[in-house]
């Protein structure tokens, strides 16, 4: 069978042949990409919000809390804050000081400093705080000072996809499932079915630090920090995390108690930051905030501290029992 010369590709100009070839190639590529996207949607759909977190354990902790609140089983006592809350407060020890049936949950996370807390955790509490009676906020006062270290530690949370979504900073992965694949890889056994997603966190979210009975950490030279005492000041932007939480408590009907976490350091810079923090918490300009002060308590020995601000597990449990007693007295007195 012979072809007419006008329909043979040899007779067409090279540009036309190239364009037709290019269009066919683009159509093929588009079809393949669409198929891949549909497959990803099918596979990753059951993962819910889990893939968006900066850490698997964080996904388990926060999503379990969200699920409990959705089912109307929010804990009566909720601990929020940074590592001083996550590692130092054992919800079971706190709840043991209350009547049976009062449950507690630890939603604090290392480096969930005020900016990250305000951007990511606070919106979750807005959505899921029904049934909560008391929120205990435990932040290291140093987290309220602007510093490159605080920025760096917070950035994992602030740049996480869950935080971006909450703030309306959506990116490709929020729309295109293909772009979620690498975030969803740790959950690959749960693809298609959703089965095998991380269960509730151990110890109701308490993240104890192993070890103990070591030599106390050597005291640092104060000379370098003394020079900064006169110039250090807390960030109003960071302090808003506490005041916004207090405001949310008023709206949602829970009580906010801010804890000054145990600390062993005598560093003058730390003391100055603590002084300013206490002063701002009790300032009449701001909504009243209940404060329980556990700085340098008698019931903790220097060997209970890992690094001056974090406690080993035994010390953390002892501190949590004292915190539970203090909370019970505080709540029953008002």
């Amino acid at each position, binding site marked *: 069978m012979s072809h007419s010369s006008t329909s043979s590709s040899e007779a067409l100009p090279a540009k036309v042949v190239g364009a037709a070839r290019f269009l066919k190639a683009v159509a*093929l*590529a588009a079809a*393949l990409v669409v198929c891949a996207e549909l497959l990803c949607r099918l596979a990753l759909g059951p993962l819910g919000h889990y893939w968006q977190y900066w850490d698997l354990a964080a996904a388990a902790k926060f999503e379990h809390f969200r699920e409990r609140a959705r089912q109307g089983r929010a804990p009566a006592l909720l601990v929020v804050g940074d590592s001083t809350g996550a590692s130092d407060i054992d919800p079971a020890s706190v709840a043991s000081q209350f009547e049976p049936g009062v449950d507690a949950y630890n939603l604090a996370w290392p480096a969930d400093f005020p900016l990250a807390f305000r951007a990511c955790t606070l919106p979750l509490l807005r959505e899921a705080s029904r049934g909560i009676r008391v929120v205990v906020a435990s932040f290291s006062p140093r987290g309220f000072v602007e510093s*490159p270290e605080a920025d*760096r530690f917070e950035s994992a949370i602030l740049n996480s996809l869950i935080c971006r979504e909450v703030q309306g900073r959506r*990116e490709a992965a929020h729309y295109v499932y293909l*772009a979620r*694949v*690498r975030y969803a890889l740790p959950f690959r056994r749960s693809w298609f079915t959703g089965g095998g997603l991380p269960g509730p966190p151990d110890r109701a979210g308490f993240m104890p630090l192993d070890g103990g009975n070591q030599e106390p950490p050597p005291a640092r030279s104060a000379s370098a920090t003394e020079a900064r005492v006169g110039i250090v000041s807390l960030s109003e932007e960071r302090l808003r995390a506490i005041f916004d939480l207090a405001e949310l408590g008023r709206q949602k009907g829970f009580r906010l108690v801010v804890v000054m976490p145990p600390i062993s350091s005598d560093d003058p810079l730390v003391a100055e930051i603590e002084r300013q923090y206490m002063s701002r918490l009790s300032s009449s300009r701001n909504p009243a905030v209940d404060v329980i002060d556990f700085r340098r308590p008698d019931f903790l020995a220097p060997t209970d501290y890992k690094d001056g601000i974090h406690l080993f597990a035994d010390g953390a449990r002892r501190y949590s029992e004292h915190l539970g007693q203090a909370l019970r007295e505080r709540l029953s007195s008002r």
Partner: protein
Amino acid sequence: MAVADTLAPLVDVRFQFPWLVSGSDLVWALYLFSIQIYCDFSGYSDIARGVSRLFGIDLALNFRQPYFATSIADFWRRWHISLSTWFRDYLFPGSSQRTKRSRWMRPVNVRRVRHVRRVLVTFLVSGLWHGASWVFVAWGGLHGIYVSLQSLVSDARVGARIATVGAEPSRLKALLAMVATFHLVTFTWLFFRAGSLVGAWNYLAALGRWQPAGSIAPLNILGVRLPLLLMTLAAGEILQERTRSQTPILEWSWLPQGLAYAYLAVAILVLGNPSGDVPFIYFQF
């Protein structure tokens, strides 16, 4: 751009906190920045060329696989071609004023000194073009020293009849020269990226200590994502270098062409960092 934006956060944190990173991570971060800046700048240049062509304007090629250069002079024939050509055409001959001939110098030495001086001035100005900062002076100065040394060594080899003019170097020699050039260029990027001489010194000091990993998690160099992304980039570069074409895929038949586009699109989405919040490095210049 997908490669550059993926590498950017990995590089940024290591240059910001070099004392919290292991020695090997600091070396990797330097390599990755070398790749990042190329992909970032070359990618934006290609986008500009493509958009211009839509309007019928044919912009000149700005990057031609610079990391395949076998010498620093060759690198500058392939990197930021528009700027380096401008410097070559307008600044380099402009600095060739008559020089007083020293009594002890033979004419050939005078020519060499003049040449070296011109090279150094050109590269120092090129450094200052990027910003009035000592790090850019150091960056330009290093390139000037590299090119000057290369021309002196080259002259000496010709004089000693070691090199055969016009002869192609062996493949192994070319590969070694390419690797050496890449490392020399990568070292200069340290100054470019550090932001200050103190920052560069801190980075070098941390590198010299070869410290163990600090609180920043080590790079997952042996994972899937980075190697696959870099291999995809390398495959494209090799293809362009071998075919001497910037658009070799367009020459393929529709089936492999379509498969290649699909792979690239999926690779960008799956392996890349398509968040769009990484600024173009050269916006600051």
